[in-house]
C-alpha cells in the first residue's frame, strides 16, 4: 500500500511540475533563429554597405533585365515609344494601344513601386549608418556610404518625376504604415533630388578603383539632367527656367570638361585589335572557316564605337573614359549563383529570322543575332529613317555597329546560300501586308549593343540569348546631349550644335549640325542614333512635356494602334490606381488625361 501512495504522489508532483513548472511568458516569446530582424540586423558598418549593395542590385535589375516582364520592357526597353514596338507574334505585349492602357496597367504599377522600393533601401542605409552601435573606420567611409544611399534616392526621384510628375517625398524609413502621402509638385520632386546631390558632391570620389561604384561624375551627370528637368517643369509652370538650364550646363561642363571623362576616339579594350566576323551557318557543326563572311567577301571593320559595347569594356577603370556609371555583370558569378548577372539583350531585342526567313536564313546563331525572340523591335524610324540618305556617313550605322548584311545560311537555298540576301527579300516586298508585317517586325538590322560575334558560355550550354557585359547607365555621350539640350533651351543654338558635333565627329560623321538645324526633334533623333537600346526613352519623351511624346509615338510607331487609339494629350504616365486607392487618407490627384 505504501508503494501505491508513493506512486500517487509522484503523479501529483508531476502534475504540479507540468502546470506550474514553466514560465509562461518566456515559453511564448519568439526568438527567430535563422534570420535577422530590424532589431538585431545591424552590428557593423559593413552591413550598412550591404544595404547599399542592394541598391546597386535593384538598379541592375531595372536596367539590365529588360525582358523579365512588360514593365521593364517599357521602362528600359522603350517599348511603346517612338523607338520601339512589338512584332506580329507579340501583339499581346503591345504598349501603345491606348484602348487598353489604363492606370491599372502593370507597367505603371510595377515601375512606380520599384523606385519607391529603391528609396526604401536607400532610406534604410541612411537610417542604419547613424545607429549608435555602428562603428565606422573613418568619417570618409561613412560619408561615402551615405552619399551613395542619397544618390540612389535622388536617382529614384528623378525617374519618378520624369515619368509620373510630382510624387510624395519619403525621406525616412517607414516603420508603421501611412495612408496620407501627399504629392509634391514636379519641381519640388526634382528640387529634393538636386539638394540631395549637391549636398553629397564633396563626399563622392572623383574616381574609384572599384568598378561600378558611384563617383562624383555620376552625381554631376545626374544634376545636369535634373536641372534640365527642373527647367522644363518651370516652363510648364510658367516660371523662369533660365537659372535651371544654366545650372544644367554648369554641371554638364563639370563632367564634359572636368578632365576626368572624354569621348573615346580610338580603338581600345578587350578586342582592340579584332574585327567581328560571322559564319553563314545555322548549326554550330557547320561553322567552318570556309563559311566566314570575310571569306565570302564580306569582311567587317571594327571601330571605336563597336569597342564601347564589347564585353569587359564598359568601365572607366578598364580605360573607357566615357563610362560614367555602368551596371556590373560577371559571368563567373552568374554561373555560381547570381542569376541576375547578365544582359538578356540578344533575346529581348534580337530578331526572329528563323520564323519568316526559315528557308533562307534560319537558326539562332551569331549571324542572325543570336537567339532573339523580339520582345521589342526597332521601329522603321529607329532602324532606317534616321540614317536615310547618309548610310555610309556614320560610324553608328557601320556594318560593325548596325549590321545590315546577312548571308543565306540554308545550303538547300542555292539562290542565297553564302550570298547577300537583299532587303527586298528580307522584307518580302510585294507580298501581302500580313506577310510583310511579319517580316519587317522580326527581321531587322542587328546592333552590336544587343548581339555579338563571340558569345560567352556557349560551351556551358548558354544559347546566345545573353550578353555578359555591363550596361551603361550614364555615358558621356548622353551628358553631352543633355548639355546640348540645355543650351538649346537657353537659346544657345550655336553651343548646342557644337555639342552635337562632338558626338558626330567622334562617329566620323560627314554630316554635321549647324545652329539653324537645332531643334527638339534633332536632339531626339541624335539621341536615337547615339543612345538606342541605352536610354530610357520614356523618361526622355515625358520629361520634355507638351505633346512631344504623343506626337512622336503616333508618328513613328510600327503599328497603327496609337494612331487610332491615342486621343489623349498626355505627357506623364498615370499614377497607378492602386497607389490612389491605398493612400486612403489623402486623395492623390490623377495625372491629366488618365482615368
Amino acid at each position, binding site marked *: 500500500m505504501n508503494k501505491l501512495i508513493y506512486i500517487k504522489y509522484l503523479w501529483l508532483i508531476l502534475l504540479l511540475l507540468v502546470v506550474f513548472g514553466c514560465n509562461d*511568458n518566456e515559453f511564448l516569446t*519568439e526568438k527567430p533563429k535563422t534570420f*535577422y530582424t530590424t532589431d538585431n540586423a545591424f552590428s557593423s558598418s559593413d552591413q550598412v554597405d550591404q544595404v547599399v549593395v*542592394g541598391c546597386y542590385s535593384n538598379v541592375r535589375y531595372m536596367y539590365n533585365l529588360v525582358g523579365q516582364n512588360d514593365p521593364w520592357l517599357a521602362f528600359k526597353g522603350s517599348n511603346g515609344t517612338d523607338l520601339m514596338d512589338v512584332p506580329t*507574334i507579340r501583339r499581346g505585349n503591345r504598349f501603345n494601344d491606348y484602348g487598353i492602357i489604363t492606370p491599372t496597367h502593370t507597367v505603371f504599377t510595377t515601375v512606380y513601386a520599384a523606385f519607391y522600393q529603391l528609396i526604401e533601401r536607400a532610406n*534604410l542605409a541612411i537610417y542604419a549608418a547613424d545607429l549608435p552601435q555602428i562603428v565606422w573606420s573613418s568619417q570618409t567611409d561613412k560619408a561615402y556610404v551615405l552619399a551613395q544611399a542619397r544618390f540612389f534616392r535622388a536617382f529614384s526621384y528623378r525617374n519618378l518625376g520624369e515619368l509620373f510628375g510630382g510624387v510624395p517625398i519619403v525621406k525616412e524609413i517607414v516603420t508603421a504604415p501611412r495612408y496620407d502621402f501627399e504629392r509634391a509638385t514636379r519641381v519640388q520632386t526634382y528640387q529634393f533630388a538636386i539638394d540631395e546631390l549637391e549636398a553629397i558632391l564633396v563626399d563622392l570620389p572623383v574616381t574609384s578603383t572599384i568598378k561600378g561604384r558611384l563617383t562624383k561624375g555620376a552625381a554631376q551627370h545626374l544634376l545636369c539632367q535634373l536641372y534640365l528637368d527642373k527647367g522644363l517643369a518651370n516652363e510648364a509652370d510658367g516660371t523662369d527656367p533660365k537659372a535651371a538650364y544654366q545650372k544644367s550646363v554648369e554641371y554638364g561642363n563639370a563632367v564634359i570638361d572636368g578632365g576626368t571623362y572624354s569621348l573615346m576616339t580610338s580603338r581600345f579594350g578587350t578586342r582592340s585589335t579584332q574585327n567581328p566576323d560571322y559564319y553563314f551557318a545555322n548549326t554550330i557543326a557547320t561553322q567552318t572557316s570556309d563559311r566566314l563572311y570575310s571569306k565570302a567577301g564580306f569582311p567587317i571593320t571594327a571601330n571605336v564605337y563597336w569597342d564601347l559595347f564589347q564585353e569587359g569594356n564598359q568601365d572607366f577603370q578598364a580605360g573607357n573614359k566615357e563610362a560614367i556609371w555602368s551596371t*556590373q555583370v560577371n559571368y563567373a*558569378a552568374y*554561373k555560381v549563383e547570381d542569376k541576375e548577372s547578365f544582359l538578356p539583350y540578344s533575346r529581348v531585342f534580337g530578331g526572329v529570322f528563323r520564323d519568316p526567313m526559315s528557308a533562307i536564313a534560319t537558326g539562332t546563331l551569331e549571324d542572325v543575332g543570336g537567339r532573339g525572340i523580339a520582345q521589342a523591335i526597332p521601329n522603321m524610324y529607329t532602324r532606317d529613317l534616321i540614317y536615310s540618305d547618309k548610310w555610309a556617313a556614320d560610324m553608328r550605322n557601320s556594318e560593325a555597329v548596325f549590321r545590315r548584311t546577312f548571308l543565306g545560311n540554308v545550303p538547300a537555298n542555292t539562290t542565297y546560300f553564302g550570298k547577300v540576301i537583299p532587303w527586298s527579300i528580307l522584307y518580302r516586298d510585294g507580298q501581302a501586308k500580313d506577310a510583310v508585317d511579319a517580316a519587317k517586325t522580326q527581321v531587322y538590322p542587328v546592333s552590336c549593343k544587343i548581339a555579338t560575334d563571340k558569345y560567352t558560355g556557349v560551351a556551358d550550354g548558354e544559347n546566345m540569348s545573353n550578353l555578359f557585359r555591363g550596361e551603361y547607365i550614364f555615358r558621356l555621350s548622353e551628358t553631352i546631349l543633355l548639355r546640348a539640350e540645355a543650351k538649346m533651351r537657353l537659346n544657345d543654338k550655336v553651343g548646342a550644335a557644337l555639342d552635337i558635333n562632338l558626338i558626330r565627329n567622334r562617329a566620323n560623321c560627314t554630316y554635321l549640325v549647324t545652329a539653324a538645324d537645332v531643334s527638339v526633334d534633332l536632339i531626339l533623333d541624335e539621341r536615337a542614333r547615339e543612345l538606342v537600346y541605352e536610354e530610357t526613352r520614356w523618361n526622355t519623351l515625358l520629361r520634355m512635356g507638351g505633346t512631344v511624346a504623343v506626337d512622336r509615338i503616333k508618328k513613328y510607331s510600327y503599328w497603327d494602334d496609337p494612331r487610332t487609339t491615342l486621343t489623349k494629350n498626355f505627357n506623364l504616365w498615370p499614377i497607378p490606381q492602386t497607389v490612389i486607392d491605398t493612400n486612403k487618407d489623402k486623395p492623390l490627384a490623377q495625372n491629366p488625361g488618365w482615368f
Partner: protein
Amino acid sequence: MKKLFKLLCLLFSGHKKMLLVMRNSLFLILITAFQALAGGTYAQTTRLTLDLKNSSVKEVLQKIEQQSEFYFLYNSELIDVQRKVDLSVASEKVDVVLARLFDKENVNVLVRDRHIVLTPAGESATQQQKRISGKVTDQSGVVIPGATIVLKGSTNGTVTDMNGLFSMSNVPENGTLVCSFVGMKSQEIAIGKKTEFTFVLAEATVGVDEVIVIGYGTTTKKEFTGSVTQVKMENSPIANQPSLNALEAMKGSVAGLDVGAINTAGGTPSIQIRGVKSISGNNSPLIVLDGVIFMGSLNQINPNDIASYDILKDATSSAAYGSRSANGVIIITTKKGKLGKPIINFNANSGFQTWQTKPVMQTPEQYIQTVLDRNNTTDMSWMKDQQKANMAAGKVTDWLALSTRTGYVKDYQASISGASEKMSYYLSGAYSDSKGVLIGDDFNRSTILAKINADITSWLQIGLDAAYTNAHFSGVRANLTTAQNMGPYSVPYRDDANQLLEKYPETQSQVNPLWDVIGDTRENLDKRNNFRVNTFALIKFPWVKGLTYRFNYAGNLSKDQTGAFINERSYVAEGNVTDATRYSIAAYKNLLSKANGNINNTTNSSWLIDNILSYKNTFGKHSVDLTAVATRDFSHSEYENVIGSDFTANGNTLLGINGLHKATTQKIDVYVQDRSNIGYFGRLSYSYKEKYYLTSSYRRDGASVFGMDNKWGNFFAGGLAWKISDEGFYTPIKKVVNSLKLKASSGMNGNQGLGPYGTLSPVASGSSGGIRYEFGTPTINYGMNVTALGNPILGWEKTQSSNFGFESAWFNDRLFLDVDMYFTQTTNQLFTRSIPVMTGFSTMQSSMGQVNNTGLETTINSVNFKNKDWTWNSGLTTWINRNKLVHLYGDDLNKDGKEDDDIANSRFIGKPLGAIYGYRQDGIVQTSDTQYMTANGVTAGTPKYVDLDADGKITSLDREILGYTSPNFKINFSNTVSYKNWEFYMMVSGVFGGGPGYYQASNSTAFMAGGTGLFASNSIYIPYWTSTNPSNQYPSATFAGDGRFLGLMSRDFVRIQDINLSYSFNQPWVKNAGIKNMKVFISATNLATFTKWEGGDPEVGVTVRANTPSALSSYNLGVNISF
C-alpha cells in the same frame, strides 16, 4: 525494447522529464499485451493463491483478476457479489476456487480461456412460471456474449454466454424482455406464448443518446447544449467510398461543413465550417485526434482507422479549444478493440479514375483559323518545317490525351482488434496506391497504427497509440498548360519508333508537356514520414467519487524529404526536330554546367501536454460535470535545403540526386521555426432532472505568434438546453414529435491566423537573402534589406458566436430533424492589407475590422420505409451561409456618413467577402457603336462596359461590385436502400450562389481566343467576334485583354457525388469457412456534374489552360472480410 526506447528518446528529446513515466507505462502495456496474445489452455495451467477474510465476492473476483489474466463477466443485479466470504486457497486452479466461492445451485460458471461468465443458475423448484431461452446477435449474425436480458420492470434478468445464448425462468406471459448491450440499441420483445427469442441488436448510429466527443471529455447528445454533428464511419456506407484522405468521406454529410475537392493523387481537400470568418487568416478548423490536438497533416491519418467524426460547430462546443477553435473543431476518433473475440479484418478496394470535365480542344482546322485570326494575319511562316510536314500528312497529336491516362486507386487494409475488460487493442496496417489522371501524378502510402489501453489497477488506466505513416508523392505532373497550348501539328517525339521525346515540339519556347515527366532527365523526390505517439494516464482518485485526473502526452515527428535533380539531358538545346546532334553525347557534355539539384530535408516535431482534472457526479436530480485543463504545446520546424549545381568538373551526373556533393557549386539554406501555445480551461456542465442543461466555460490562451503585449486572450462560452418533451404539458404532442430539445449557446473563440514571426520585420541578408551584386570581380557581394513591414500589435482574432436550434424526433423515431441557426461576429481580423507602396512595401499584416456570418443549417434523417427485408433511409442536409464585412479601418474620409470601402483590396463595408469589383460588361462593342468607340478609343470586337456615371467614357468611376466568389447555399441528399443482404447508397450534392452574382469567378480564357502571349497556342474553340459574324459574348480573336475584362461565369453545380452498392454474405458456407463478415461493394465518386462552368471542374474552379487538375471521377470495386 532498447531500440524502442531509443526511438522514444528521439521522439521526446527536449522533453526529458516525461521519459521515466513513459518508459514505465510502456513497459506495463507491452507486458499486458504480450500475455494477452500468448496462447494455451490458460484455465488449466494457471494456479491461484488467495487468502482473504471477510471480503466481498466482488473483491475476491477483483483479486483473481489482478493475479491472473482472467476477467469476469456478470450482471451484479443477478449475481450477489456483495456477499462476504472468507477464502483461503493455495495454488489452486480457477474452477476449484470458483466452486468454493459459489453455490452450484445459484450460479453457473462458464470458463472460456480467460473469459469467465457468471450467470444465475436455472430455476428453483418453487417458482414454476415459464422458462424461455434465446440468442442475441448483431445485424450481421455475429453472436453477442455478455448482453443483458432483463424482464422489464423487474430485477430478474440474465447475461448471454460466450455463444450468445441465454435462458431465463420466472417470466410472466404478459411481460416484456429488454435486451441491451454497450454500443447497441436496446431491443424489447413482448413474451406472450413464445419460449424461443432471437434478439438482433442494431448498432446505435442515429439517436439522441449518442455519446459525443467534446473538448477534453465526452457527453451525450441528449445533454449537450451546443451544435455538434457526429458522423459514424464504422459499418456505414460512406466507408465504402474509396477515400484516401481522412476528410473526404465526410463530404456532404454534415450541414455547415464544406469539404473541397481533391484533384491530385494523395491531395488534401480544403475544409471550412460555417463560412469564411477571417478576411485572410486561416479559415480551417482545428483537428483533434483521439482527444488531442493534431499537429500533423491529415494525409497521415488512414481513413480506415477512423471510427467516427464529431464536428463541433458552435462556440460552446469548441470553447474547450478556445485558442484555435473559431473556425470550428473536427474531432476524429479512431477505432478501438471491442469486447469479445478478436476480430481480424481485411479490406481491399481498387478502381480507376477518369477526368470527366476534360476540355474539348480545337480541331486542327479551328486551330489554324484561330491562330491566323488572333494574330490578324494570313501569313503561315510561323509554322515550322516539321509542323508543315505533319499538316501535309494529316498527322495530328492530341496533346491532352498524350498527357493524361486512366488513373487508378488501390487500397488494402488489415486490422486486428479485440478487448478484454482490462485491456483493449487495435492494430492496423494499410497500403494505398493511387495514380492520378495526369501522367506523373503518383502517390502511395503505408500506415501502421497500434493502440493499446490497459487498466493497470482499479485507479489507474494507461494507454498508448503509436502510428507511423510513410507517403510518397514523388513524380512530376505533366504540364496541363502546355498540353493545352500545344498545336495539333507539333511534334511530340524526335524518334517516333522509340518514342523518344522532343523537348521543343514547336522547335522553340514551348517545352513538351511530358518533358521531365517521363524519360530520364529529371528525378523528383517527395517522401514524407511521420511518427506519432499519444499516451495517456487516467487516475481515478479513490477518495473522491467521480474525480479523475488525466494526463495526455502527444508527440509528433515528421521527416519529409523533397528534392529534384535535373540532369544535363534536360537542358537540350532548341532546334529542328531533325537535328539529332542536340541529343548527342557531345552536346550533353556541354550542358553539364546546367545540371543541378537540391535535397530539402524538413523536420517537424511537436509535443503537447494536457493535464485534465474532471469531476462528475450526480446528487439526486442534480448532475455536475466539472473539467479543469492546463495545456501547452510546442512545435518546431527545421528546414535544410542543400543545393548543388554545375557538374562540368565532375564529368557526369550518373549519381543523380545522390551525387549533389560532386557539384562545383554547393549551397545550403537553413530555416528554423518555433511556435508555442499555452491554455488554461475550466468548464461546468450541470443538469437538473435530466431536463435542464447548462454548460459554461472559460479559457485563457497564450500564443507565441502574437506581439509581445497581445499574446493572451480570454474566451468565455455558455449554453442552455431544455428537453421540453419531458415536460408534463408536452404529452399531447409527444405522439407526433416524440422528443424535442431546445438549445441556445453563445461564446467567444479565437483564431491565430498568423504564422510565426508575423509581427516582426525580417531582414534578408547573405547568400540566402537573394540580393547579389558584383563590383567588377567574380566575388559576389550580398545585399541586405527589410523584406516585410512588421506589425507588433497583432493579436487574437476573436469570434463571438451564438447558436440557436432544436433537435427533434418524429413519428415513432422515424424522422429526425435538427435545425441550427447561428450568428458570428469575428473581430480584430488578421489580414494582409495593401498599403501605399511609398512606404517601400505594398502589403502588411493588420488586425482590425469585423466580419459577420449568419447561417441556417438543417439536417433531416428519416427511415422512409422498413420491413423485414427492406429499409430505406434518407438524409438531407442543407446550409446557407452569408457573410458580411461590417467594419474595416473605421474611416469615413469622404464624409458620407458611411465607413469607407477598401477598393484596392476589394473589401466593401456591408458586403460579403470575396467581392468581385470592376467594370460590368455589356456585351461586345459592335461596329455600329461609333460613339462608344470614339469616346473610349477602342475598336469593334472588344468588350463593352456599362458607363455607370453616364459621362460618356469608361473610367475608374464606372467600377462596381459585380458579384462574389463565395457560394452560400449547399444541399446534399443521400439515400440508403437495403434489401436483405443488399445495400445501395447514393449522394447528390449541389453548391449554389444562392443570390445574384454569388459563386462566380473570372474565366476569361473561356471567352478569349487571344491573350496567351504565345503566337500559336491552342485552346478550346471560341466562337469569337468577327465583323461578319458579330458575337455579343465573345470578343474578337485579336483582343488580348484590357485590364478590365473578367469573363465572369457562375460556378454553380449539381453533382452525383457518391454511389455505392454492397452485398453482405451470411450464407452458411460463409460461417463454415470461419468468416464472420464478408461484404463486396462497388462504388463511384463524382459520377456526373451538371454545371454551366466551362474549361474544367467548377468545384476547383479550373479554367482552360490552367495548370490545375480537376476533381476526378473514380469507380471502385472492394471487398471487406472479417474473421
